[in-house]
């Protein structure tokens, strides 16, 4: 299992995501200006402030050269995980439904929260049990999830535990997938929750789930695996 973590100008959590993924597989960094996904089996769009979050969060990063092949990879069924800024980028890129709005408090908030697994059947949560509450930190200013009209509630994979919604997300949504189930975006940072000594190891389950998904069905060909 080979993960590729994108490094945009202004990414902050790409190395943490790489180290987290490396606990369950191989992990490399992908440069934003490249067009080569280096044969990875899954792409992680990491947290941070890509392009300084100027204009609008994620709005510039979606036009980065690497996002062309990432979009193609996702359309072909490749696993793509967007964390925080990565979630925002994937929404801007149209790979995930909805949008992220400024927190109701209008302030940056860094806090350990409970994240409930609503759907444990996805490629990102199959190492979890439905109803599990994972202790994972959030840290963002723009994390209030706003679903599009006619949003299918089944796409909400993760939600904040009761009373722990840090940003005013509708229906307490913390993470959503696309209809095909191969793209997931979430505001909490599982890469910062992979070691009890730094607070929690609950986030590891997401990376482990992705590794369990490998190897893919043959429908997802052409990316270095048979």
């Amino acid at each position, binding site marked *: 299992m080979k993960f590729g973590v994108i490094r945009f100008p202004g990414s902050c959590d790409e190395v943490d995501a790489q180290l987290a993924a490396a606990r369950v597989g191989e992990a490399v960094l992908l440069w934003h200006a490249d067009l080569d996904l280096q044969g990875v089996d899954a792409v992680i769009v990491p947290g941070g402030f890509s392009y300084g979050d100027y204009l609008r969060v994620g709005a510039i990063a979606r036009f980065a050269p690497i996002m062309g092949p990432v979009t193609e990879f996702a359309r072909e069924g490749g696993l793509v995980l967007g964390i925080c800024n990565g979630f925002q980028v994937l929404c801007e890129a149209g790979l995930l439904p909805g949008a992220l709005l400024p927190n109701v408090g209008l302030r*940056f908030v860094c806090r350990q929260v409970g994240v409930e697994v609503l759907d444990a059947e996805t490629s990102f949560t199959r190492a979890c049990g439905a109803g599990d509450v994972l202790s994972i930190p959030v840290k963002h200013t723009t994390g209030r999830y706003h679903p599009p009209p006619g949003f299918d509630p089944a796409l909400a994979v993760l939600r904040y535990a009761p009373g722990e919604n840090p940003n005013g997300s509708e229906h307490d949504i913390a993470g959503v997938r696309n209809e095909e189930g191969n793209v997931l975006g979430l505001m909490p940072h599982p890469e910062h929750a992979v070691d009890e000594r730094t607070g929690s190891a609950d986030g590891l389950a997401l990376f482990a789930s992705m590794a369990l998904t490998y190897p893919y069905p043959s429908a997802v060909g052409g990316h270095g695996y048979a």
Partner: protein
Amino acid sequence: MHETGTLPGVDEAVALGLTREEYALVVEKLGRPPNEVELAMFSLLWSEHCAYKHSKKLLRTLPTDGAHVVMGPGENAGAVDVGGGLACAFKVESHNHPSAVEPFQGAATGVGGILRDIFALGARPIAVLDSLRFGEPEASGRSRYLLDRAVAGIGHYGNSVGVPTVGGEVGFEGPYEHNCLVNAMALGVAPRERLIRSAAAGAGNVVVLFGAATGRDGIGGASVLASAELGEGDEEKRPTVQVGDPFAGKLLLECSLELLERGLLVALQDLGAAGLTSSASEMASKGGVGIDLDVARVPLRESGMEPFEIMVSESQERMLCVVEPDRVDEALAVCARWELHGTAIGAVTDSGRMRIFAGDELVGDVPVAALVDECPLYDLAPARPSRPLYPAPAATLAPGAGVEEALLALLRAPNLASRRALFEQYDCLVQSRTVRRPEDADSAVLALPDGSALAVTIDGDGRRVAADPYRGTIEAVLEGAANLACVGAEPLGLTNNLNFGNPEKPHVAWQLTEAVRGLGDACRALGVPVTGGNVSLYNEAVAGPIYPTPVVGMVGRLPDLAHAGVAGFAREGDLVALVGWDAAPALAAGELSKLRGEPLPGGLPGVDLERVVATLAAVRDAVRAGALSSCHDVARGGFLVAVAEACLAGGVGAELDLGAPMSASGGRARAPDDPWTHLFGERPGGFVVSGERAALDELGARTPLDVFGTVGGGALELAVGGVRAAWSLDALRDAHAALAALFP
């Protein structure tokens, strides 16, 4: 030299902050009057901010040597060996006056500036801490505004560059109303052999400027803003405040580290106060060389900038480096990859002179030594004030209040209330090495690759220093060491920021002299070297000087991160003990005394440094051994506040009986004569610990220790000298959350 127009004279020099005598000295050193470019350069490098002309002689008395020191004062930051082949670079700096004028950008660029100091050494920044002072938030809308915007500015920069803000402190006192303090500390780590110095070397080597373009922002920041008192019309000084771009800062950080990793640099220096002038001349001075610069090659943000403006601009996110000629192309390619300007703007020479060109035209030519090393240093004329300098604070606690109300009032007090509403605005996690977060423990703890950890803390209490500059400063150092001991760390080095008023006034000179004497004595007693720091003077406004505020940042190491201590009670049934005090504390100059509206006393009780150092070692060893369930030092507010904080941090109550102390070590128990003094008095060297009987007995054999109660239940219950009181955890929590109301 080609000259056009008339030369500036002494009046222009005075307007730029030089004295008439200093101007005459400049003329003497040049052998002619300086032109506009040269005068601008001298006015900045001979400012208090750059030349430390009122403090340098005092700073020379501080101990700077130690077994762990890798780099001492004089480099961009100090550095200590932390084992495993790694060095830790760290430093604190102030951005007080910019923050008083424009708090968001002032605080943000304060963080940006201290981060550049760290990666200028080749170390990757791994943590930021901050130390803030404002006026009373309840009484002053301006103080609430400054607090809100300064916190937002710190978060804006630190969060965006991916460096965790792991700790800090904030204090609220009337004398900071018109002159807030914003001090930022950063630390970074690097393989020891990769640290790089800033000395330029090798005539013929190329000087490369990289980072953001240069604009007119921050012109005169060091001389106009940082080296004079605040006063009316400071809004007009906003153009002297720099504007930060953390995105550019992040690129600059990564680019600098990549340049070093590829071995492309001879020397590296950041551009801070006084911009290109200061960076280039200090690099030249340290290397004993000269530098030629061509301002026409500097990428500009706006057209029509004069050579002097380019030389003194404090535009943020820029670095200067020296590169061997055959490596320049590769270095510039790295800059381009990070989408930064990278431009060869000059060369190292053996002339010993700073020569400034605008294209072919020589527009400035001064000896490096005159600029950097020959600013006159002044002796202070200290005099102990004959009258109190500061008015008594307004009373906020009713005279008849009992123990129950007093504890709640203390927990609610701005100086003691939980900082959660502030620190939740900071990313304390990025880089995934934060083992102890804010409020987990008395110090932040950061994991190192070999399973050991760094601990870091920043401390200072201006009110106690105002009462007694010598002993108050000793207490600040001991507080830092105590915070390290609580997590099991021994101090490796210390950085300090001396925030004082106008040193030309005898009473401020006395405060400064006494404080530096206390700092030196405390460091020698602890065996901790001062590896760097910063001095911020002229912190006063119309109403008078700030409380003298030495801020101490301390870095320590603990061998096993699995045994990093926590502050909160952790296990029902553990015994609660007070460790370290062999004499009663005093209420005067403490937080309760402030709430009662009492004036400052004319001194603090003496401290037996040797005893405190022995207690610190005993506590540290117990924590390292994993013998204690919790450890929290007794600081502001005294013993009962420390116990309440341990209850809140652990989410569990405690039952205390101070009337009948049970001695763990036998025979040392004392019944308190005055419960108020015992409960709320303050003095250094005390700890509230919890654990099992055997562990406390062992600790009690090395240092005074009295068992006063047990951990458990959902309330803090107290019996002392016939008084009984109880607080539910919810009541304590509500009081402690008082600051949250300021951040709706």
